[in-house]
């Protein structure tokens, strides 16, 4: 018995405007609403609606035997609500089939685990509440932004009560073992790890339309052979990829939808194979070994580490600065401020600042709304400057209000005023000065 476990990542960042130095203090809308809306419409029509419909057909056709999982970032959910509620409705329809699992992630699709456990936990809980609200599921399995993972993450998630966590199956940590088993991080007693089979996943996500590839064009028949060939040498093939693979990264004319349409039937033609969601996989198979990762790994770029987001000083400075505002942001108690801050924490902003200009540079460039990584940093830091000031001002006002309130309280105490007539006057003038 072997499982094929599909998980699709759905995410769209809130892209920032080309926010100039002269906008600081003058313009407080940081988002490029036009571009965000445009991209959302484009991807909704080319990928989300189209693929969701196909998934729904496949689930119905296979009567519960085709099962999949999604992780939808809070940023994507917010933008669905804002721009394309029809996309959200189609995901809800999928959830209602009972064949679709929704995973947990950080609300802002952020790097928060690296910077602040407190903020990480807050975002994970916020996201889980949204998933419950929209899809009536409480996530049991977590996937971190771009599959960023290490032992600490697994152990921390265990303490938060999660059953499983997704990770890239990184060769240097697998030590010649197969990614096609369930593993466990050292120190973990309950939580288990599902490792991405990056060869088979990337055959679909990256190589599918590559005409220079020896297996081009890839058919469902060929692919099912590769999966079936693993019978006996593994228990679960984890196919993890961006959902935008379907129709956005791989265009319709590449035949990607035809491929997807025929894949479930082809895989299920072997009696030992089934489709299972992450939670089902964790129930079906025990851990077969320890997957020991001290450094942070991810599914990004050829390095599969954090270098896509944090390898140069601009990325480090920008992320350090924005995370350093955590307590001030919460101090405002202002939900709008929190919302904007979350949108600034999205990992994509730091990805755009990446200066690795080999192979992967092209990928960064493809996704970046800016002309260069330097522009990305410049605009981000200008936004940061305005945001920092706004937060500071709000906190100052708040502090003054509190002071004024305590003076008011003081003024209602009559004793001192009765003995010292000037005391009453002093209180009323300073209260007036504070609130003005």
């Amino acid at each position: 018995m072997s499982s094929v476990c599909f998980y699709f990542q759905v995410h769209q960042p809130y892209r920032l405007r080309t926010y100039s130095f002269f906008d600081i203090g003058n313009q407080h809308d940081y988002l490029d609403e036009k571009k965000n809306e445009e991209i959302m419409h484009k991807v909704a029509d080319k990928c989300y609606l189209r693929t969701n419909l196909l998934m729904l057909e496949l689930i119905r056709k296979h009567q519960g035997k085709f099962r999949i999982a999604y992780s939808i970032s809070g940023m994507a959910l917010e933008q669905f609500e804002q721009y394309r509620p029809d996309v959200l409705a189609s995901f809800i329809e999928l959830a209602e089939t009972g064949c679709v699992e929704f995973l947990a992630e950080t609300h802002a699709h952020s790097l928060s685990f690296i910077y602040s456990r407190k903020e990480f936990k807050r975002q994970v809980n916020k996201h889980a509440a949204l998933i419950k609200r929209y899809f009536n599921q409480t996530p049991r399995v977590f996937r971190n932004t771009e599959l960023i993972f290490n032992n600490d993450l697994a152990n921390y998630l265990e303490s938060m009560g999660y059953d499983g966590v997704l990770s890239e199956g990184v060769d240097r940590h697998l030590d010649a073992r197969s990614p096609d088993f369930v593993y466990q991080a050292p120190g973990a007693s309950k939580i288990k790890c599902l490792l991405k089979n990056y060869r088979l996943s990337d055959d679909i996500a990256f190589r599918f339309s590559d005409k220079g590839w020896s297996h081009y064009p890839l058919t469902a028949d060929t692919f099912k052979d590769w999966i079936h060939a693993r019978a006996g040498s593994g228990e679960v093939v984890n196919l993890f990829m961006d959902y935008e693979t379907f129709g956005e990264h791989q265009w319709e004319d590449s035949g990607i939808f035809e491929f997807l349409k025929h894949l479930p039937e082809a895989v299920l033609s072997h009696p030992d194979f089934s489709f299972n969601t992450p939670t089902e996989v964790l129930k079906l198979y025990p851990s077969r070994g320890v997957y020991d990762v001290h450094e942070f790994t991810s599914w990004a770029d050829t390095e599969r580490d954090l270098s896509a987001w944090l390898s140069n000083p601009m990325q480090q400075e920008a992320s350090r600065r924005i995370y350093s505002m955590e307590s001030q942001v919460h101090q405002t108690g202002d939900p709008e401020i929190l919302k904007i801050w979350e949108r600034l924490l999205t990992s994509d902003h730091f990805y755009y600042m990446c200066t690795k200009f080999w192979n992967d540079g092209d990928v960064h460039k493809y996704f970046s709304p800016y002309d260069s990584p330097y522009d990305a940093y410049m605009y981000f830091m200008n936004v940061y400057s305005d945001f920092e000031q706004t937060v500071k001002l709000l906190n100052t006002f708040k502090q003054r209000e509190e002071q004024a309130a305590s003076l008011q309280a003081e003024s209602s105490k009559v004793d001192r005023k009765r003995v010292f007539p000037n005391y009453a006057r002093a209180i009323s003038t300073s209260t007036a000065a504070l609130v003005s």
Partner: protein
Amino acid sequence: MSQKRPKVLMLGWEFPPIINGGLGVACHDLSQAMTSMASITMVIPKTSTGFQMDNMQLIGLNMLDAASKKNAFTDKAATPGFERFTIDADLNPYSANISEEPFSMEKLRQRQKDIGADTRFDLDTLYGGDVISKVVQYAARVAELAKDMDFDIIHAHDWMTMLAGIFIKEASGKPLVIHIHSLEYDRSGIAAGWVYELEKHGMEMADLLMPVSHYTADVIARYYGISKKKMAVIHNGTSIVKPFKKSAPYAEKTVLFVGRLTRQKGPTHFLDIASAVLAQHKDVRFVMAGVGDYFSSIIEKSANDKLGNRFHMTGFLNTNRLRDLFAISDVYCMPSLSEPFGLSAVEAAQFSIPCVISKQSGVAEVLPGSLKFDFWDTRKAADYIINLLRDPVFAQKVSADAVLNLNQISWPIAASKIIDAYRDFSLLN
């Protein structure tokens, strides 16, 4: 001594609106001021229609072809006016790539002959790529045009037009004046290379040199071996701007840098100064306006030094945006390694901003009241800036002195000094 209006054939390269260098501004304002005392014919590589200027004949080579050149000169209506010269980023001759061929006048003369009299000036290939070809093409074409022109004196600006000046002088026997706004030595820091050789040869051939500062005159004497006896220093003027003040969009004070981000302008020194100031005085932001090949390394270094919240790069700015920046600034800092003049410091002074400027600059001569430091002494610059930020009385005194200094310079003063120098050096016979 002849008192009639001298007829000046001016050879120029770039014109406003240009943000990345002072040459275009200086050429434009200077020649305009000279029109009251001289008849000016200005030849530049490129003009376009729509920008007229009085009392001056302006010829853009792109407007002419060989067959119609005579018409263009005799028929006023066919002459394009003094026009706006639009310049692309890669057109800037000061950051051009020069091929490493050795300098040779013989070779250049041969190329002039090859180009011949009837070659159309090919604008598409004028900028970017092989700058030497463009300089030779310009020289050959202008020399050909000059055969039919009536003039008393040739007045060339900087290295791009020197070769043309040499050819015309040889053909016409008229005196050659070279105005020096900027030198290869300033830009590269070394006295060698093709452009250096051309500059040296041109200045040797010239009858009179007009460096924009005593600082530049010293550089010419020291690194080009040319006697100061054939130099007349002409300080630049200032364009009249209406200064205004604005409050900054943040609570901190602002220290401003304006200029091309190239080695010559000392951008890394500015960053070092910023670090030193911020170590002692937190309530200040540093703003760098301009683009150039140091842009990305400065941004990265500022992030690396963890100055992201206090160090801003604006990228390219037009004149109005630049003035908005002057309007909010509290200190202007110019840490140039070698600056023949430094017009932007004058502009800062016009906005009553106290200036902290490198001693290795010409503008230091016309702003004696400003605070000066050797460009490598970033410690001292930082001390000055901290004092200006903390002591409003001191800042007020420094900026007030600068405004007084400004009364000593203007384009009409520069223009009349030029005409006087033509006469003093007996070039108008």
